[in-house]
């Protein structure tokens, strides 16, 4: 069997792919930054926070980790408008990714916090720091350093999972591929381009996260 490769269409549709890649990068940028921030706050609550708050965070984490991302996305995009919240597809996708990564990173970061030696808390306390100051200045950075590889993997997973936002017509890389494929009928080549682009994005994202690690954790050992 001889397959006739054909990439002639690629030049014409390049802008569509570029736009898709840009949207995917925007999604993961917002999702990773805000999602990890949300995860840190939730991890603090679960590990060290006030008792009355813990059940709420636990419920949020379990709800998100035990339901499909696509359903969460549909709920936010199609469900919330009934409550009067009008969202664009991109806003809904951003929120869904932040909420999703927030729950997963909460559990990862919590593990890092709980592995902190008790002496670190005592040293903070004996220097007259408040528990919150101790968390912020003493506990947090080494905790993140401990779990950074796991957190980076989760961020990459969420980036790859972002392809489902094409289902609510966010024009990300997957949406772009579907669009192009429906025009050129070269499914194999089109999805090959999409696959390689995702692969490159994932590798690049990992490198970026390694770099971030190098900047915020000056020492390798904890």
């Amino acid at each position, binding site marked *: 069997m001889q397959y006739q490769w054909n990439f002639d269409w690629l030049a014409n549709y390049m802008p569509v792919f570029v736009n898709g890649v840009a949207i995917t990068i925007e999604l993961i940028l917002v999702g990773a930054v805000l999602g990890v921030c949300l995860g840190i706050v939730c991890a603090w609550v679960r590990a060290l926070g006030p008792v009355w708050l813990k059940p709420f965070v636990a419920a949020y984490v379990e709800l998100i980790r035990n339901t499909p991302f696509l359903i969460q996305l549909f709920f936010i995009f199609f469900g919330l408008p009934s409550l009067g919240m009008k969202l664009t597809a991109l806003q809904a996708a951003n929120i869904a990714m932040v909420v999703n990564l927030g729950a997963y990173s909460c559990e990862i970061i919590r593990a890092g916090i709980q592995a902190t*030696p008790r*002496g*670190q808390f*005592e*040293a903070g*306390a*004996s*220097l*007259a*720091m*408040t528990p919150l*100051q101790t968390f912020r*200045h*003493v506990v947090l*950075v*080494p905790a993140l*350093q401990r779990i950074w590889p796991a957190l980076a993997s989760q961020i990459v997973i969420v980036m790859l999972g972002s392809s489902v936002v094409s289902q609510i017509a966010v024009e990300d890389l997957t949406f772009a591929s579907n669009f192009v494929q429906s025009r050129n009928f070269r499914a194999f080549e089109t999805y090959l381009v999409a696959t390689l682009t995702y692969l490159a994005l994932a590798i690049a994202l990992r490198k970026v996260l390694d770099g971030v690690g190098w900047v915020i*954790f*000056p*020492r390798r*050992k*904890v």
Partner: protein
Amino acid sequence: MSLIAITDVRKSFGSNEVLKGIDIDIARGEVIAIIGKSGSGKSTLLRCINGLETIDSGSISVEGAQLLTEARALRELRLKVGMIFQQFNLFPHLTAGRNVMLSQMVVKKTPKDEAAEIARNMLQRVGLGEKFDAYPDQLSGGQQQRVAIARALAMQPIALLCDEITSALDPELVAEVLAVVKELAAEGMTLVMVTHEMRFARDVCSRVVFMHQGRVHEIGPPEDVFTNPRTPELQQFLGMSQAA
């Protein structure tokens, strides 16, 4: 008036009563060594003085102010009473200099430049002026412990609590830490140390407290305690530690 007044302090962990009514008055400038077997309550007593453990009954006061469990009052106290730990507990992600600067900046809101200046002086004081930019894992145990001392000193405490600060060190590193402590004692710092360094206790301390089964078993100047132990428990303890 005594600087630290410990009156009838009791503390239990579950059904195990660790402190069974402790009374000690510590005057300003005194250097107190607390000795005794493990499990005798030495470390617990020290940790009660700056509120790392809460006491069940009795009272502890520092400069006339009662030790309260209320968080703000506790932090006020901890500004006056520094603590140094057996395991150093330096912050691994910060340089030696940053370790000394952190609480000044966070707690006292000292401007960064001034905090760095103080940190430099304190590191100089413990003989580590050139290690400002070293991370804890680049330092020996003895150096780490001296950074921990500098960190506590930077808060300008009126007393320092030392919880077996040489017990985690290799024998050849003990002397450099004790030399720093000795200097502090000479400068008039009030020190309360749980220690196994009997010779150091004898040479430097103004009083020695021997704890046994949660009580102060003997207390007095080192020459009395070490040369004329009155109770068989202390005799046995000293015999053991001399043999060791």
